[in-house]
């Protein structure tokens, strides 16, 4: 009998042993899990300040409104942009700049932008012959269908979920295709890093709930920043109460820089 009873006991023992091993394993798992989750969480928290503050890119879609009639051509936007984004001070590199359009009485259009307007504008050339004259701030239009992103051979420029066109400066090879492709002249090659550079809508400010530096310093409120799709945002109000035009609509780039009171001569 004993020999008969033993065999059933042995499997029971084995089963017990297996289940004990399993229990041990589960226990170890349970102790290890917080550690594991902890490391994953730590990894995510390293990922950046934006996520820490609960910024959700998919909830936004940014654009900028520009009221040409309010622009006084002081160039503070171009100056602030260079300060905020560490853009080289040479008068060749701009993420945003101000142009002065002068339409003479004989129909000629003269566009000037000395140093992007940072140091002010010299007096108009022929004051007697001016038909109309005005300032136009320019910047990257953050197109919904951007040619610069299409031509980048390495995927170093892209649209984020919140509709901002950014450059990956660690991955850019400096081939200048995007500089050539941009119909708005909004890109340049940074002479220090040898990579393409452009307006980012001050993405580092926007993810923290601030407005871009140019909007912050504009003394007349000619620049308005906000969500295009939101029912209530400064930009939503701007496009509601102004007649809006975009630059070069025939190119089908879907620009998100919305101009109010824009003259037909502006290119």
């Amino acid at each position: 009998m004993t020999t008969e009873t033993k065999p059933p006991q042995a499997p029971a023992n084995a089963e017990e042993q297996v289940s004990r091993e399993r229990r041990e394993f589960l226990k170890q798992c349970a102790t290890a899990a917080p550690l594991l989750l902890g490391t994953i969480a730590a990894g995510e928290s390293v990922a950046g300040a934006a996520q820490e503050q609960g910024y959700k890119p998919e909830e936004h879609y940014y654009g900028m409104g520009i009221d040409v009639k309010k622009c006084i051509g002081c160039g503070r936007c171009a100056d602030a942009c260079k300060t905020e984004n560490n853009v080289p001070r040479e008068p060749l590199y701009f993420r945003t700049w101000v142009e002065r359009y002068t339409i003479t009485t004989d129909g000629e259009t003269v566009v000037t932008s000395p140093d992007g307007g940072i140091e002010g504008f010299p007096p108009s050339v022929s004051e007697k012959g001016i038909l109309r004259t005005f300032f136009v701030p320019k910047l990257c239009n953050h197109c919904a269908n951007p040619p610069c992103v299409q031509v980048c051979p390495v995927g170093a420029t892209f649209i984020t979920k919140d509709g901002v066109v950014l450059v990956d400066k660690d991955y850019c090879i400096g081939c200048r295709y995007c500089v050539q492709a941009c119909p708005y002249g909004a890109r340049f090659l940074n002479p220090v890093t040898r990579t393409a550079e452009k307006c980012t809508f001050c993405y580092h400010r926007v993810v923290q709930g601030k407005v871009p530096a140019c909007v912050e310093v504009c003394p007349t409120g000619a620049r308005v920043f906000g969500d295009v799709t939101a029912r209530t945002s400064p930009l939503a109000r701007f496009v509601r109460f102004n007649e809006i035009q975009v630059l070069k609509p025939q190119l089908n780039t879907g620009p998100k820089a919305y101009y109010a009171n824009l003259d037909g001569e502006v290119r």
Partner: protein
Amino acid sequence: MPQQVKRLAVVFVVLIGALIGARHYLVPKTFGLLGHYRAAAVEANASKPMMYAGHEACAVCHPDIVKIHDDARHRTVACEVCHGAQAAHVDSPADHIPPAPRERAFCPLCHAYDPARPTGFPQIDPITHNPGHPCITCHNPHAPVPPHTPQECSACHGEIARTKTLSKHAILPCTTCHEVQELHKNNPLASTPTKPQTREFCGQCHSQDAKAPSEIVRVDMSTHGQRYVCWQCHYPHSPEVQ
């Protein structure tokens, strides 16, 4: 299976393995997570340091000045327009003292006369406007007002005044055609000056039977543009007939 197929298969396996290996090492870690780009680049763009603190930050420590500023005409001009990017000052106030531009060249960046500026924006000619004096000797930049009520129309309407100076109408004072209430000088939009409302007003000098010097251009009031008041076609500050 024929031997050549086996050999080719080995070559393919090696090549595909090499491709997978190469992709593993060459394609950046976060590439393709969100699209055809490195997801980490979004974070790289988002994590740059801020230079401009924003005007909300100033009110925390300087409520008195911000109060004066917010009630005055410069209320739309953020502190950092004049005082520069001051995120560093917000972080450690004692180590970074914001500059205050006192030199004469700064204010004309906005207020120098330029015909491209919007009509009505306060502008001066930096060469003739109290030369040599810094702007702050007369104007408080936080609450700017003219130090005294402007006497001449050209103090605010420089663009029109200049145009008129070069025109046939140069000798006519503004009040010939415009009636200006005293209130307009202190509160421009509360009372706007009048414009001539009849054709006969211009006809005092320009009609056939006007008692005016004979050099003045005459028109036949009965046939010339009956439906319109003269200034609807002609610009009186610089009449086209020169």
